[in-house]
């Protein structure tokens, strides 16, 4: 019973310590030209110029990233299946072209998802195998495998919440996310 009480005491600590969001990503490429400018500037000028040029560089990259992500389309799957359907091959080809264009700058994260039929590990594994199928297809199209990471969100990341077969079909998918 004491442990219950103790858990209550540390709850607020855990609330903050345990809920860390994704760590901010540092864009090292954006800061490279800034360092060259700094070398030529006087110490006082460096303090002003450095953050301004870093800021501009970051904004440009954010735009490129979102623009590229907008061109990537999700790949959809049949119930309890992780093989890529023939109808999805065209999307795979167009997605791989986009990934190849930006792969020098960004990594690509494949996010496997399932419909709502089960929160168990099998559903997570199914989402992962879907992501893995897409990864193999991208590699076959010439994408560098080392640029691709995968994760499965199981049924926990639905884009459609209705109780219809059409809705469930929208949730059986692999999404693309670009990583700086």
């Amino acid at each position, binding site marked *: 019973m004491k442990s219950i009480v103790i858990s209550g005491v*540390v709850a607020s600590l855990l*609330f903050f310590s345990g*809920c860390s969001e994704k760590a901010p990503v540092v864009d090292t490429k954006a800061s490279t030209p800034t360092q060259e400018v700094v070398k030529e500037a006087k110490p006082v000028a460096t303090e002003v110029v450095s953050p301004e040029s870093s800021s501009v560089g970051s904004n440009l990259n954010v735009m490129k990233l979102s623009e590229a992500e907008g061109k990537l389309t999700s790949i959809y799957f049949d119930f309890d299946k992780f093989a890529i359907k023939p109808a999805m091959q065209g999307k795979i080809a167009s997605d791989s072209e986009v990934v190849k264009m930006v792969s020098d700058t960004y990594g690509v994260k494949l996010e496997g998802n399932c419909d709502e039929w089960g929160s168990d590990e*099998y559903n997570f594994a199914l989402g*992962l195998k879907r992501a893995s199928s897409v990864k193999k297809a991208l590699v076959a199209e010439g994408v560098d495998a080392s640029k691709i990471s*995968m994760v499965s969100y199981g049924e*926990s990341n639905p884009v459609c919440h209705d109780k219809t077969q059409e809705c469930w079909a929208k949730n059986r998918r692999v999404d693309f996310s670009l990583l700086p």
Partner: protein
Amino acid sequence: MKFFLSLLFIYSFTFASDATIEVVKQAETLPSIAVEDATYNYGDTFKMQVFKALVADLNVISIFNVDRHHRMVDYDDGRVLVANKDQDYVLRFKMLEEDNGGLMIQMKLFNHDTTVFSKNYKVNRKNLYVFVSHAIAYDINEYMGKESVAWMKRKVVFSRIVAPRKSEIVIADYTLSYQHTILSGGFNIFPKWATNKQDSFYYTNLNGLKPTLKFLDIRNGKISNIIASDGMMVCSDVSSDGQRLLLTMARDGQPDIYTYNVISKKLRRQTFYKGIDVGGHFQNDDSIVFISNRLGYPNVFSKKLGTKEVEQMVYYGKSNSACSANGQYIVYKARESSNVFSKNSFNLHLISTQTDFIRRLTATGINEFPEFSKDGDAIIFIKNYKEQSSIGIIRLNYNKNYLFPLKYGRLQSLDW
């Protein structure tokens, strides 16, 4: 109110579908019990909360026909109330407020007019009363010499999905009357108690680049990283001594089962099939059961650790995608309907490795994530039915199911 709702669920879902003639006969012969309240220094609302908790717990231990009338009495009166004179047993309780805001509950059990058992209980805060109620029911069950219900006193840890990729990890009692959100923000799922003491747990963190298994020590709030894997990382089971973990990891996108020794940090791959192998559970010290799609659909298999031989365990059900083991018994989730999108899709079944015995444990809704209690007396599971997410308890020896609904969010996984 929650307890009455839970009891309504019991009658509407369980008795209607799972009760057998044998159990009905048994119910007629159970001894009767009434609860007498001798509390005078708390408000009526709180007194009724505690009374209802006691009545619900006495129902769950399944050895009494429980009278539901709330009656006040003098604690020191040597006789039971006239209205209860025909009851076989009477539980009398009295709540006392402690100086520091704590709560003391005195109880005694009458067999007709003879006190046969008495005990005092204390908690530091009165909102922990439900754990006293569980302890009283546990002690009465022990006094009556019935199968242990030690699981009643254990805490349940569960993850609750509150939005896409947003979850909370909550510690609760088995009825969900007490809930304490211990981890919120981000995406943390698959909590699993690390020790029998329930003072720490493992969980999967999906906030970073790679799924990471983390360890949270409740005593000091410290969080540490255990191991990470691309794609998937779940702690499926913990050995009884807490030293070995069964992990599902997916290096190179291939989900397989691994053993991980928390002392030596040694990781060993246990399954090698090219498809899906997940959800390992210890059957005993050297063998596991797990889910694999090596037949083209998910089903339950077993294997001895360190060997490559695999044995199919279940020959019923079109899609068996979750399981748990306790000695010779295996409980698994099966999709029974030929229509994969019908409302009656997933039910729990129990088999024995020693016999051909198959027992259907649930009848409606989506029933999943079964976990045996440590002593094998009960099974806890998640039920999703008509937008309602609940924790279910199955008393195997009494063929009874109890449901405790979640107020908001959807249950993702649990352990106890």
